[in-house]
């Protein structure tokens, strides 16, 4: 009935296929429900309820995306909502990965954040909203919609980073992230404007059509536009030299937010980057590939090398995530369907790993009674004796990040290397693997610290660690056992997924290989 009523109205509405934007609706709807409930039922009483709704929404979104993928396999991909959203395998697969990251974070995140910043639905709502932004970015087939998704995601993340208001570190991190984020969004937008000027449209498919049919005499404006877009994505993905914000923000933000941010920001940004570059600018490959190569190599090298001297664990993991960004960029620079598949695999494996890792680190932080952002190697020394379970799980995840065999990390690095070698960029593959070896050194130092028996193993060189960064004061933090259970489920899930896909990667490989971009 409603449909017929609407059709008679004089203004012609574009035919909206709600099925394509189902994932966003689910998440956004859940966020609204949580807000509405908190207004009626009361903010403090039912944290479990909001977390439950959030979890249900995440699982529902995952199921919906999986169903979408099945439909696309049958009926083929299509553009929806007048070309703004592309409903193809790629978006569905990214939807599934976002769902996975969201489920894990829903399990691990809220427990810690609430114990620090008080009960309340805000955290769950922000998680759902940022995930919506991520999905919009992934599905966007229009540069403006990409910008829209980017901003929804970023603004939600700015607030989440600054979530622990009483702690100066968190506020400072939020501010830095905000100012630099704003700046890079402006740069990104200017790039979009220039591309719009040069090609007459912001729709990726139309841009591609325009560029393939016309030959621009002076393509300066177009190239500069593409470059600025790459800067925007470079910032979001924390690729060197636009990475400068990430160590401080990773250290300042609450640990579980750091984990979520490291995963979700990369998923969304890489998805959008892949789609924009593969669809709109695949003809300008000769131009933008060297830029991505430069970004990749710089991130690989400096990500690994800068991490060597870090003593604070979250800062070290920040640099290591820059190294991981470098690896995923390898998939992007390959610019082949294989490259896309390998980048997706790396994204999936990496986000599960990183959320689990940061979950464990927040557990260790709480256990050691340390304040956020100052957990150094010495605090973790000999953890293997005190809490063997946590130590072993953390060791597995750290070794997975290092690329040890029988973990998904190994298959991820391996597949990305094959992508690069398939385009005959052998020297980059060698550089990548050597940086992996360097990265192995500091991963190993962490694992060694976990299981080392003698306390006094501090080399002279390491005495230069800056004075302990004093932040807010929340000693004697207690976690209710009720909230511990989902945390453990989340951590065990991430370790299980990492090891399972290490042993039997075919499942994930098939999934990501169905994630083809439609153009």
């Amino acid at each position, binding site marked *: 009935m409603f449909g017929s009523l609407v059709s008679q109205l004089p203004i012609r509405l574009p035919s909206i296929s709600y099925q394509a934007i189902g994932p966003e609706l689910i998440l956004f709807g859940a966020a609204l429900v949580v807000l509405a409930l908190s207004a009626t039922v009361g903010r403090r009483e039912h944290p479990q309820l909001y977390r439950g709704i959030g979890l249900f929404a995440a699982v529902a979104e995952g199921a919906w995306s999986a169903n979408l993928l099945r439909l696309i396999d049958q009926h083929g991909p299509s553009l929806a909502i007048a070309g703004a959203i592309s409903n193809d395998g790629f978006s569905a697969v990214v939807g599934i990965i976002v769902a996975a990251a969201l489920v894990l974070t829903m399990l691990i995140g809220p427990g810690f954040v609430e114990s620090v910043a008080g009960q309340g639905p805000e955290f769950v709502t922000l998680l759902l909203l940022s995930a919506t932004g991520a999905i919009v970015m992934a599905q966007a087939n229009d540069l403006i919609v990409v910008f829209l998704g980017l901003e929804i995601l970023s603004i939600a993340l700015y607030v989440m980073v600054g979530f622990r208001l009483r702690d100066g570190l968190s506020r400072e991190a939020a501010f830095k992230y905000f100012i630099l984020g704003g700046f890079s969004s*402006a740069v990104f937008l200017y790039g979009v404007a220039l591309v719009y000027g040069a090609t007459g449209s912001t729709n990726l498919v139309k841009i591609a059509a325009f560029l393939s049919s016309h030959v621009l005499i002076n393509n300066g404006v177009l190239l500069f536009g593409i470059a600025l877009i790459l800067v925007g994505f470079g910032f979001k993905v924390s690729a060197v030299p636009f990475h400068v914000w990430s160590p401080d923000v990773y250290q300042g933000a609450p640990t579980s937010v750091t984990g979520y941010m490291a995963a979700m920001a990369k998923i969304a940004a890489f998805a959008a980057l892949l789609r924009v570059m593969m669809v709109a600018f695949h003809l300008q490959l000769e131009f933008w590939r060297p830029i991505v190569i430069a970004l990749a190599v710089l991130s690989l090298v400096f990500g690994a090398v800068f991490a060597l001297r870090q003593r604070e664990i979250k800062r070290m993991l920040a640099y290591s995530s820059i190294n991981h960004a470098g690896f995923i960029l390898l998939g992007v620079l390959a610019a082949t369907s294989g490259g896309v598949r390998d980048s997706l695999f790396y994204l999936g494996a990496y986000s599960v790993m990183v959320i689990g890792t940061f979950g464990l680190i927040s557990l260790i932080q709480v256990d050691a009674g340390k304040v956020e952002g100052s957990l150094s190697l010495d605090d973790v020394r000999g953890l293997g004796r005190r809490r063997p379970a946590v130590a072993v799980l953390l060791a597995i995840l750290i070794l997975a990040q290092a690329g040890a065999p029988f973990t998904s990390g190994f298959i991820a690095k391996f597949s990305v290397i094959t992508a690069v070698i398939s385009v005959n960029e052998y020297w980059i593959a060698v550089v990548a693997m050597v940086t992996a070896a360097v990265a192995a050194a500091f991963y190993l130092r962490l694992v060694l610290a976990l299981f080392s028996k003698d306390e006094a193993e501090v080399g002279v060189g390491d005495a230069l660690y800056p004075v302990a960064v004093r932040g807010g004061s929340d000693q004697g933090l207690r976690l209710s056992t009720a909230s511990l259970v989902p945390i453990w489920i989340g951590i065990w899930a991430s370790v299980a997924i990492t090891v399972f896909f290490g042993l039997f990667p075919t499942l994930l490989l098939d999934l990501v290989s169905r994630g083809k971009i439609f153009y």
Partner: protein
Amino acid sequence: MSIPGSWYLVVAALLFGLGAFGVLTRRNVIVMFMSVELMLNAVNLTFVTYARMLNDVGGQVAVFFVLVVAAAEVVVGLGIIVAIFRHRATVTVDDISSLKG
């Protein structure tokens, strides 16, 4: 005698450069924030100019999205700035640098 579109583009580019320069040099947080907004408005001008040159409504529609997003940014940004500088007397950006190394 209408002014050719490219002039507007040059003005927009200058505005964008000015905004970026402003963010770099000014120490007051509020002014930095305003500079970012200035950069966004420069982009709007570019959009409108291109829309007019290509006489395509897409550019103008994009401006609305940008305005909405800028507004959201202002809200969140000011919230954060107020939270940070509630306890401090001055608003200079350089003294919030305890996260380093």
